[in-house]
């Protein structure tokens, strides 16, 4: 997703029609039309998702994989159809490779707790990057502390790109797993996943990807990327909260022990011993987030209907316009200049702290995230305590970038130019 990317904006990308699908975009904040530039934290929901969730509750709802009655079968069909939608969305080989989780955080914890505890021991190494969200740091620290493994971090350069030479140096026979983000949530860097996965595999390590900031914005093909685990969250993908997906190669999932114990995941239980269902069900203890899974399926259908290449081209256009306009504002420093970058622009202003920026532009109806973006190490690396972050979705427009820049003028009005 570089500025010179070959993707071009389709002339028929009808952003106004898309905006009509998102009821919340019609509202005002402090008397101003909402400018929502915080999709990286959570995306807004289209009617199609809201309708699908309402519909399943009004017409088809029941517990899944349980009863013999009509509704149980109907609801199970919808629930499992959503799993197939996820599989298609990332080009998994089969739907049984998709595990429902509460979100990407739980997916990462699941792999650390099951695959990790089984396969990682003292002296082994897990590799992550400087760009990780806390959710792709802390589960591995817990695993490290439990197993005596080592946690190594790939450095990034001043532009915010991972140092591939340093990465190569961290790969040897002891390296068991590399787990990195596809797109940095804090500064927008797109990592060269395919190349990094090949390097890991050459040394016998597995490769996991946190795809939260990629899945909503670009085509993702887990077979083409040739990775071993991939995860993303529902709510950042225009779907509901409380649902996410983990994809893993079937052979890996089959070999992993269960995550949590309970109903739904067992084949047979006696007080002496229980046996478990096959993947993915053995990882899904308890009644799952049925309505949310259906909602996520609807969200992914929506993204596909708009077209993922079209979304990428449109968002790139808007985000690059934002970089250009923000760079021209006196005092603004953009953090992160990777050649390949997503629809995220992180910045600071010399005169004002990001929280003060966030508060002031909020009164102009402009919503951005201000803070550390759950990525303290990135803030340390670029020597900023916090940044303001504008993150774009398929419904944003260049005119909203103009509103952001206008609102920053009010910051300068208060804090000086």
């Amino acid at each position, binding site marked *: 997703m570089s500025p010179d990317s070959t993707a071009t904006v389709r002339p028929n990308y009808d952003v106004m029609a898309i905006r009509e699908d998102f009821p919340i975009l019609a509202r005002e904040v402090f008397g101003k039309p909402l400018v929502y530039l915080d999709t990286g934290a959570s995306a807004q929901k289209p009617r199609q998702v809201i309708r699908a969730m309402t519909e399943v509750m009004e017409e088809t709802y029941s517990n899944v994989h349980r009863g013999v009655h009509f509704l149980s079968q109907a609801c199970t069909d919808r629930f499992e159809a959503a799993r197939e939608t996820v599989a298609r969305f990332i080009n998994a080989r089969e739907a049984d490779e998709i595990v429902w989780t509460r979100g990407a955080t739980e997916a990462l914890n699941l792999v650390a707790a099951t695959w990790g505890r089984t396969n990682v021991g003292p002296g082994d190494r897990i590799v992550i990057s400087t760009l990780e969200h806390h959710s792709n740091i802390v589960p591995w620290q817990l695993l490290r502390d439990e197993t005596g493994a080592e946690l190594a971090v790939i450095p990034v350069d001043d532009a915010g790109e991972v140092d591939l030479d340093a990465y190569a140096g961290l790969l040897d026979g002891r390296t068991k797993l590399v787990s990195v983000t596809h797109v940095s949530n804090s500064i927008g860097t797109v990592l060269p996943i395919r190349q990094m996965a090949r390097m890991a595999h050459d040394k016998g390590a597995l490769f996991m990807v946190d795809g939260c900031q990629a899945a909503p914005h670009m085509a993702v093909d887990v077979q083409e990327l040739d990775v071993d685990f991939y995860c993303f969250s529902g709510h950042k993908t225009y779907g509901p909260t409380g649902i996410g997906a983990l994809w893993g190669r079937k052979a890996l999932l089959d070999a992993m022990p269960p995550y949590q114990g309970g109903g739904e995941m067992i084949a047979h239980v006696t007080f002496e011993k229980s046996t478990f269902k096959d993947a993915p069900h053995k990882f899904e203890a308890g009644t799952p987030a049925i309505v949310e899974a259906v909602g996520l399926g609807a969200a992914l259908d929506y993204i596909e209907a708009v077209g993922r290449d079209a979304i990428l081209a449109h968002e790139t256009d808007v985000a690059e316009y934002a970089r250009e306009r923000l760079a021209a504002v006196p005092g603004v420093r953009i953090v992160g200049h990777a050649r390949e970058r997503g629809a995220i622009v992180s910045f600071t202003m010399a005169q*004002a*702290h*990001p*929280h*003060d920026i966030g*508060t*002031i532009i909020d*009164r102009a109806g402009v919503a951005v995230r*201000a*803070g*550390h973006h759950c990525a*303290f190490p990135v*803030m340390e690396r670029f020597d900023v*305590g*916090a940044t303001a972050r504008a993150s774009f979705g398929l419904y944003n427009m260049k005119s909203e970038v103009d509103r952001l820049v206008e609102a920053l003028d*009010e910051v300068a009005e*208060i*804090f000086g130019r």
Partner: protein
Amino acid sequence: MNELRELYQEVILDHGRSPRNFRRIENADGEAKGDNPLCGDRVHVYVKLDGTGGLDDVAFQGRGCAITTASASMMTELLKGRSEAEARRLFDVFHAVCTDEAFDPLDVPEEFEDEADRLQVMAGVRQFPMRVKCATLPWHTFAAALDGKQTATTE
């Protein structure tokens, strides 16, 4: 925009830009680190006692937004020379100024009458619930330093 002007008064901008007592105290009698996990703001407050139950010196270091920095800066000025007991009562008043809609910031207890102007400056945060913690973090950290705790958090 009026609420913004009330929040970002000139005196707050001034303390935010040029914080007073922004330094470390060597051999402090109490010190604590405060952080706001929500946004990553951090302050380190140092307290030097005078041996007779009074605060000889209060200073801070750290990095944060204009509200946190100004609040910490003004706090050090308000506290220096007071007794510990007075300082704790002043914290209660400050807390009410920042959070209690029913509290008239100009109607402070008699013993703090002279500070009424300086206290009411922060009343603007009441209109910004997400920012109240920025204003109170330095004071919580100060209280932690007095109590011999090493850390304070707004959560």
